[in-house]
């Protein structure tokens, strides 16, 4: 029995009988605490959401909570303004975020899946040491790696945004960022998948071996199909991580509007528009749309990814 079940009053009492009322009254403080804390937690988000639908005049002179007294003033003009081309490049940044996040998810997940398999089911010298090293790398500050990678990109490969855009090949300007995210995401990807693979019953592998399945067959026909939940968790985790990333994008692609993702763009807007601008509220909410949709629809997988990744620093 869970604590929740244990703590439930054994309410066999008939409804509205004195005992029923007593049972339920005694739990009021609990409900008030739970709902109160949750509501308090929601206040910052709700405040921003309400503000984003208020005109500039309202935002600058009164708190968001006063808006409910006068609901007619709500407007979507903040959104139309912020999304209109020319002022903020937010639309461009939105697509850029996709162009960055999708490949930067596909790469570490697929490379990681192949690499995780030997860590889980093959014996080779150095396996445990390598795995431990990967776990260690999970917590290494990425800052430690920026300067050499960046100078390699710029001074040796001449991979600057300008040079790469000049080639005219679509997608090329993001390649430095994709590869960097792949490198940074791989330790976690391998860690999560190897642990999942390892938990598959060994009988399945032995049975497949007797049935005549080779390494490739076992991987593609047994391991991968059985690992769909883990792969889904990883994909969502990595996608949100990259989508929400500011630092890595800032370092490797910087603020050039044609390539910068939403986070960089939004951070830039706080400087260019000045903090407290009415447009910022709308821009912030716009940047949250995709993560919130992913979170609300695939929450189960996301939480599982977080749980598995509790060692990721």
């Amino acid at each position, binding site marked *: 029995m869970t604590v929740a079940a*244990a703590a439930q009053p054994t309410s066999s009492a008939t409804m509205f009988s004195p005992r029923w009322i007593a049972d339920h009254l005694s739990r009021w403080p609990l409900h008030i605490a739970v709902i109160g804390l949750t509501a308090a937690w929601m206040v910052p988000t709700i405040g*921003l959401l309400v503000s984003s639908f208020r005109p500039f005049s309202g935002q600058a*002179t009164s708190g968001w909570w006063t808006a409910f007294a006068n609901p007619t003033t709500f407007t979507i003009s903040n959104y139309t303004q912020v999304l209109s*081309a020319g002022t903020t490049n937010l639309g461009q940044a939105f697509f850029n975020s*996709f162009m960055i996040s999708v490949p930067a998810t596909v790469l570490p997940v697929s490379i990681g899946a192949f690499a995780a398999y030997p860590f889980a089911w093959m014996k080779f010298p150095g396996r445990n040491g390598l795995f431990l090293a990967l776990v260690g790398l999970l917590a290494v500050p990425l800052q430690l790696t920026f*300067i050499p990678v960046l100078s390699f990109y710029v001074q*040796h490969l001449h991979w600057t945004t300008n040079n790469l855009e000049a080639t005219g090949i679509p997608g090329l300007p993001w390649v430095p960022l994709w590869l960097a995210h792949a490198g940074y995401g791989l330790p976690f990807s391998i860690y999560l998948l190897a642990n999942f693979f390892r938990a598959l019953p060994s009988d399945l592998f032995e049975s497949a071996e007797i049935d005549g399945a080779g390494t490739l067959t076992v991987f593609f026909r047994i391991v991968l199909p059985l690992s769909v939940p883990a792969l889904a968790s990883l994909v969502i985790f990595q996608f949100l991580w990259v989508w929400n990333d*500011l630092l890595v994008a800032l370092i490797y692609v910087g603020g050039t509007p044609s390539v910068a993702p939403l986070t960089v763009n939004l951070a830039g807007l706080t400087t260019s528009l000045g903090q407290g601008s009415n447009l910022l509220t709308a821009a912030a909410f716009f940047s949250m749309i995709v993560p919130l949709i992913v979170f609300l629809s695939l929450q189960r997988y996301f939480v599982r990814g977080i749980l598995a990744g509790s060692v990721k620093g």
Partner: protein
Amino acid sequence: MDFSLLLQDIPTLLVVILGVPVVLAAYIVGGEYLVRRLPDKNRPQVRPWIWVGPALILVAAYLLIPAILTAIQSLESNNVDVLDPGTWGTNFVGFKNFARQFADFPTGGAWVAIRNNVIFWLIFYTIFTLIFGLILAVLFDRVKYEQFVKSLIFMPMAISSVALGLIWDFMYEYQPPGEPQTGTMNALVTTLFHHDPVSWLQDQWPGESFNLLNNLALIGAATWGITGFAMVILSAALKGIPGELLEAARVDGAGEITVFRRVILPLMMPTIVVVGTTLVIFALKAFDVVYVMTSGNYNTDVLAYRMYNQLYLASNSGGASAVAIILLVAVVPVLIFNLRQFRAVEARR
């Protein structure tokens, strides 16, 4: 919004989504074809390296080797191309880069950032998050609508720290005394406590050398974002405690508080330690909130931001490398502790 951009990008995305796995699969299949050509006894020695090869190359190229090069760079002056081993040592400055970071205690060099990271962030961020996470997990465990409230608390985990910073910029907004307050926090302060509005992000109370208030304001925003993470993991641990144990304690005459203190808390301790160490690492690596909300001004600098600052605004790659190494040195003890935990968990498998 200009949707033609989308049309132009979709083919590229498709090429990547399909191309990457196909190329990888082709590589693995090709590798396996070669492995089968080998004598039986060599196959198990060669095969794993084919499978882990691409991953190891990327991890080495982006994490391991750069980290080592940064360590070298931190001992050189700025005009060294750290990727060219021929130049190593030509501009060797010893620990000068570090000396500059450690100069003029307690306000010069990196001291403010170090203090903020290893005192303010490490202590308050970790403890606030653990306490909130634990309270929420325990309370939510007792109501039927647990899943719903949990996902509301967890939601900030899904949004970017930039958006989080903006949300809290609005919470902390300041208007001069007498004018209507537009920030939620100041509205509370002025109406509930009849106190003058507080400039949360600039106010260096109680003093410039120990400016707790604005640092706490930043830490509070970050805590708000991460508490869902702690809550979810702690809640999973809480559910792992057999209900019979709690019932036994209640039958033995323990009140709810005693049950929590003497049974629940000790049993959750290993999980609390894991969450705590992870939070410590997060605290040491804090960047986004500071970047978005204060840019390290008013003595709110942190190491990760200082490193960025040295690299881009001061064009001081030697100094930036030194700061990165300082950050690493701060993380390493926690990292070793985490690895020990990891090994202990592995040993129990």
